[in-house]
């Protein structure tokens, strides 16, 4: 069921696939200095260095597009990350809400119109990757034990996707509190 919802999310926001680079996106397609370089080389620009994982994702999209800035591939990457996030929302909420309500919550997360601002906007990939790693961190956190170390690593990756992810860390406190109550 959850995989179906993730695929449906892909279909619902799929209208963005044939869109252009827009708003702040031209800053990506213009940034040949940082994004056309080999995958693991150090980016020139400070923001690209701070968002190392996002830069890596853009470089991968650039390489997949045949060393071109093809909006389709970048949009497809956003959609793929969103679909992964939908599955992770389910995994994270399952112990709190049970299977039925967790599926509902994942569906809300997948289809809420507000998500269009992120899912259809290539420059918002940083926030989506930060969310992906935070959700992975929360999924590790619920397992406890040595998985806590992996949660720290995931949160570090979230921070390297978008520095704002530092402010996502209170989610762990709230999540831990709610887990303890169930």
């Amino acid at each position, binding site marked *: 069921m959850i995989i179906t919802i993730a695929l*449906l999310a892909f279909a*619902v*926001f*799929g*209208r*963005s696939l*044939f*869109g*252009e680079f*827009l*708003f702040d996106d*031209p800053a990506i397609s*213009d940034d040949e200095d940082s994004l056309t370089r080999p995958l693991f080389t150090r980016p020139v620009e400070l923001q690209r260095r701070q968002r190392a994982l996002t830069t890596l994702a853009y470089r991968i999209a650039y390489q997949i597009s045949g060393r071109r800035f093809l909006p389709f591939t970048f949009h497809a990457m956003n959609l793929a990350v969103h679909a992964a996030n939908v599955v992770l*929302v389910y995994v*994270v*909420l399952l112990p*709190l*809400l049970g299977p039925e*309500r*967790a599926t*509902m*919550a*994942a*569906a*809300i*997360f997948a*289809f*809420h*119109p*507000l*998500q*269009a*601002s*992120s*899912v*259809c*906007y290539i420059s*918002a990939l940083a*926030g*989506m990757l*930060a*969310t992906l790693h*935070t*959700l992975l961190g929360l999924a590790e956190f619920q397992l406890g034990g040595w998985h806590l170390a992996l949660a720290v690593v995931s949160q570090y990756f979230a921070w390297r996707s978008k520095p*704002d992810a530092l402010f*996502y860390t209170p*989610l762990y406190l*709230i999540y831990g509190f709610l887990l303890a109550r169930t």
Partner: protein
Amino acid sequence: MPAWFFDSVFEYRTYVFMLPWAALLALLPREPLLFLLSLWIYHSQERAGYYRTNLDFWEQAFKESPAKTRVRTRHIEQLLIDLERKYKQPARRWEDLQPEIDRVTKLIEGICDAQH
């Protein structure tokens, strides 16, 4: 809460905070929730359509949020400041600045198109 409120206040930064919001909403009774979900699927698809082209996006953004006009204006100001700084560099040729000039022109055209 209307979507434009979230859009103008939080913009795409709402993404991660949809997690607790979704968890809370999932506690609603099932029937109204399924009704909301079907509406949201339709509305999400519509919004994804708005994001397909620059012009549609600008139009939608400006219709929904005057705050975004201010953000774009500041963006253009910053681009012009950068342009002036680069222009003052002695080794810089006029042709080197053309991509930035095109970018500023495109942004200003976007605002004009959206406001007419």
